[in-house]
């Protein structure tokens, strides 16, 4: 299909879809007027029932915890998928990591970037751990904190060479950390099954509302998710870096 034809076909279809969307959205209650019962009920009962002050975390990791387990495995499957798609192909040779774009030199990392990157590394990792650990109290949790933790690896790459990142990122350890994080979620779920009679039942002591160790299984689940997300994103990051820095283009077998 020619681009102009395709554009015209899209605009015609978009006019229909857009009209239907506007028509349908006109039937929604205006934004700001909330009538759904679930949010109102959860905002009342989540803190007394689960001792978690972050109701979003209580919903994500407890009331709909099994749903989040599926989500975690979507992430797991996607990381595995990327690793498979970007594996070393036949005919591709690994060469020493190159810190340059093919055909032109790239200025080396300046000392200012190195110092800033290394100075930020500690605080970033600490902040990531804080976000993971306080997910049941304040905004944050395993997904958000895991991504913050993974940026630590990016800082190592920015302030050093890729070789340094390879050294601090032993592939096997990261692989295992990712699998352990994903597996730990299931183990916590099975613990609920054994101790409380249903999968992911919040069977740990709930503790005092507002304290770091409270809210039962929400904290351990956040830690498991944080581990999985951090390891998964480090893997994604290094798979993509590996493509440009380590693998040669000798495998190109275009038609």
């Amino acid at each position, binding site marked *: 299909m020619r681009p102009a034809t395709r554009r015209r076909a*899209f605009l015609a279809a978009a006019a229909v879809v857009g009209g239907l969307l506007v028509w349908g959205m006109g039937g929604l209650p205006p934004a700001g007027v909330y009538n759904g019962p679930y949010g109102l009920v959860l*905002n009342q009962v989540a803190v007394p029932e689960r001792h978690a002050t972050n109701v979003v975390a209580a*919903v994500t990791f407890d009331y709909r915890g099994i749903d989040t387990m599926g989500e975690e495995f979507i992430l797991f499957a996607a990381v595995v998928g990327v690793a498979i798609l970007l594996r070393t192909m036949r005919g591709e040779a690994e060469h020493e990591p190159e810190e340059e774009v093919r055909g032109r030199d790239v200025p080396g990392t300046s000392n200012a970037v190195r110092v800033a990157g290394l100075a930020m590394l500690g605080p970033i990792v600490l902040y990531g751990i804080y976000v993971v650990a306080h997910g049941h109290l304040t905004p944050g949790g395993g997904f958000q904190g895991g991504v913050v933790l993974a940026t630590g690896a990016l800082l190592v790459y920015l302030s050093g060479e890729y070789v340094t990142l390879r050294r601090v990122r032993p592939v096997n350890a990261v692989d295992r950390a990712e699998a352990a994080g994903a597996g730990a979620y299931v183990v916590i779920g099975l613990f609920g099954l054994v101790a409380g009679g249903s999968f992911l039942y919040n069977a740990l002591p709930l503790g005092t509302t507002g304290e770091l160790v409270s809210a039962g299984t929400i904290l351990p689940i956040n830690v498991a998710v944080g581990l999985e997300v951090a390891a998964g994103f480090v893997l994604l990051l290094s798979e993509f870096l590996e493509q440009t820095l380590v693998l040669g283009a000798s495998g190109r077998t275009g038609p």
Partner: protein
Amino acid sequence: MKPLEYLPYLVAAWLFLVGVYGVVTSRNLIHAVTCLAVAQSSTYVLLLAIGFRRDATAPIFFDVPLGTRAVDPVVASLALTDVVVGSTVTALLLALAVQIHKRLGTLDPNELRSMKG
């Protein structure tokens, strides 16, 4: 019907359509993946607009007393799931784009018509 109260829904519809427009007319797969992410971000806006309550705070009762008027935590939780799934889709599609570029030497979807097998 005050138009302002329906603005978040209209923004969601606009983001979706403009994102799909980008995918349809894209001449670069990386650009198409980014456009898909734009289209997907409309779902965040729609979810959060549905759970929004006027003069309400976030559903986090750490430093505000329980019973404070707060927005719906369920849609916030769904938006979190949405963000995670969106990022994994982006990662997978970018990996596919890398492979396509490696095998066919192009990122232009129009040149992929002769794709075999």
